[in-house]
């Protein structure tokens, strides 16, 4: 009885703002649309259209692979760096507290500000990045970072990693600090070197933190919207080089200002696919990653 009383409000909020929108997106994806007006039920025709007609089919695949790339590269440059920093910080070098604040600071900045600042830094004409390269006699490297299809997405990923780096660092650091000192000492007495301690003691016991960070990175990568939207606009410019699923969804469901029209049927279909993908992969991923976790005896 009390359980119902206490869980009730949360359930209602969850149902209204999470469950209902998901179900209505599912329903919307099965109707025909005329502008913003809903017409007849058409079953899976929107999905068929999404998969089979140009340009949607190509855009969907293009955006999906970009999300995969975002996930992989973020894992590689953000989370691996974070792990390295956490290992270093765990040894409490001089100024640890200062470093912790500095690494974590960008996480607290509003994403809008981060996007806006970096767009200024990366401006090809007066931006700091190209100015700095020119000063460093590397002017040949100066380029339109955000306007060049070969660098735009990677640049966004790096900016994103710069912003988020502090978060996995703190999580890993907390995980490392939670490793009981006796284990490390015991290993040392058994003659384990620095690297052995990290590899055989710390990493295995860090598995729960890794699970959380991998899952959050996955969900963040596949829902990635704000930063590309702020820095590149809704079209995935240039020429869809920074297009990701959320942008594609937003663009088709709500239209591009002064450019495109909304196609709510296709937009909802994309949303449903994204939800299904996130749910399945997160669930399977969670099970697989948990298996590797070792219980602290």
């Amino acid at each position, binding site marked *: 009885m009390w359980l119902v009383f206490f869980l009730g409000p949360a359930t209602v909020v969850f149902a209204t703002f999470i469950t209902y929108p998901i179900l209505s997106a599912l329903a919307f994806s099965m109707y025909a649309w*005329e*502008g*913003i*007006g809903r017409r007849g039920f058409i079953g899976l025709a929107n999905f068929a259209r999404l998969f089979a*007609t*140009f*340009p*949607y089919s190509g855009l969907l695949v293009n955006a999906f692979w970009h999300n995969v790339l975002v996930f992989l590269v973020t894992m590689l440059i953000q989370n691996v760096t974070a792990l390295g920093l956490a290992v270093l910080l765990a040894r409490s070098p001089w100024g640890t507290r200062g470093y912790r604040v500095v690494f974590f600071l960008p996480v607290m900045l509003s994403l809008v500000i981060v996007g806006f600042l970096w*767009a200024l830094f*990366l*401006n*090809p*004409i*007066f931006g700091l990045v*190209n100015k700095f390269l020119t000063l460093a006699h590397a002017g040949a490297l*100066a*380029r*339109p*970072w*955000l*306007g*060049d*299809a070969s660098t735009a997405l990677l640049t966004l990923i790096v900016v994103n990693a710069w912003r988020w780096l502090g978060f996995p660092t703190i999580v890993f650091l907390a995980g490392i600090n939670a490793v009981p000192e006796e284990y490390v000492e015991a290993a040392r007495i058994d003659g384990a070197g620095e690297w052995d301690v990290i590899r055989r003691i710390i990493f295995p016991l860090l598995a729960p933190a890794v699970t959380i960070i991998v899952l959050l990175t996955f969900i963040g990568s596949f829902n990635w919207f704000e930063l590309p939207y702020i820095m*590149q*606009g*809704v*079209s*995935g*410019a*240039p*020429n*869809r080089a920074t297009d990701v699923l959320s942008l594609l969804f937003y663009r*088709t469901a*709500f*239209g*591009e*200002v*002064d*450019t*495109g*029209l*909304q*196609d709510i049927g*296709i937009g909802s279909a994309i949303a449903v696919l994204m939800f299904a993908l996130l749910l399945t992969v997160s669930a399977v991923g969670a099970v697989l990653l948990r298996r590797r976790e070792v219980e602290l005896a």
Partner: protein
Amino acid sequence: MICLLVAGFYPAAATGQQPVKLTFWSWRVEDKWAYDKIIQAFQQRNPGIQVEFVPFKATEYNTILSSALTAGKGPDIIHLRAYGGLETFAAPGYIAQLDFDKLPELKTFSRQLLDGARGRKDGKLYGVPFATQSLVIYYNKKIFAQNNLSVPKTWDEFLTVLKTLKDHGVLPLANGGKEGWTLEVMSGVVAPNFYGGTAFYDAVTRGQTSFKDTAYTNALAKMLDLRPYMHPNFMGVDYTTMQQQFINEQAAMFIGGSWEIGFFKAQNKDLDFDIFVAPPSKAGTTPWVSSYNDGNYGVNAKTPYMDAALKFIQFTATREFGQMFTDMLAQLSAVPGVEVRDPILKHVQELSRKATPYIMLVGFRWQAPTGSTLLQSALQGMMAGSKTPEQVGDEVTKGLSAWFEPFQGR
């Protein structure tokens, strides 16, 4: 005397009757001051009606408006875009139908502009057009004089002007490619003279040809002539940077729309500029100018104050409104007979006599994927060198065939 009498009489009458309060939604945040003044003028004439102008951020306007209308709410008066942007809201029945009986003023509007206020399916009118925009080339008169240059009459002369400027260390064109729509605007300026203006527009909208036509792809290829005269990193140059470059006299020319005039003047009072239109290949032929209906004022079909709302949009169709609009916002009002006092705007008006529809907006923005969506990203590919003009033509035609039947199988 009569004024005094009227003024004395109205408050008394109004006590028995609450004034009607209308809301007017728009995406023109920057124009609020002007609309507030226009509304004041309207309210003086119609004391029983109050209008509140509520602007939203342009990029979020459509989302906010769609949600409100589908929920059976929304403002009484709606600032609407034109063509397909109007159709999205009009076709499902959210916008009140208008006709010449209700708004006889509309009879005097040009047919081209009214076409931007019509539903494509039913051909009915849904709004009062507010402005017409033309796509032109801005040039800095001081920089031209310093380099002994005059306005080019032919395409080749234009290229010579660009080269001279570049040789003298001046950035000839402020334009960039980071935002695809600025490239579509550039194609709207450059291409019509080469694809043959309205004759091609008519043929392609009737389905007699497609964008694979060499007339069109060769016209797009002319944009590549301009590439050497843009900033070497132009693909990263966004719209705001383009504007800054021209306003701060860092670049000699700016290919853009007539809506910039007011902004350029406001940002740099000393900027001495004028416009010309894209020169044709042969001297002596009048060049084409892409132009279009910028948008419309419509009435929510579900407003409880239909009469008052109609009265307001009727006011937007009057010469008085058009004059205020043109004077304050430095834009060409859609109302016929408005006197243009701004010399540059007047120049735009004169040069736009040989107008051709801005091709994707007027002809192919009726359903998703729109011609503009397809063209913009493809043009980014073309300007970056990863696509040929032929591939752009193919892609646009193929994408449009999803809803434009004449292109199917082409």
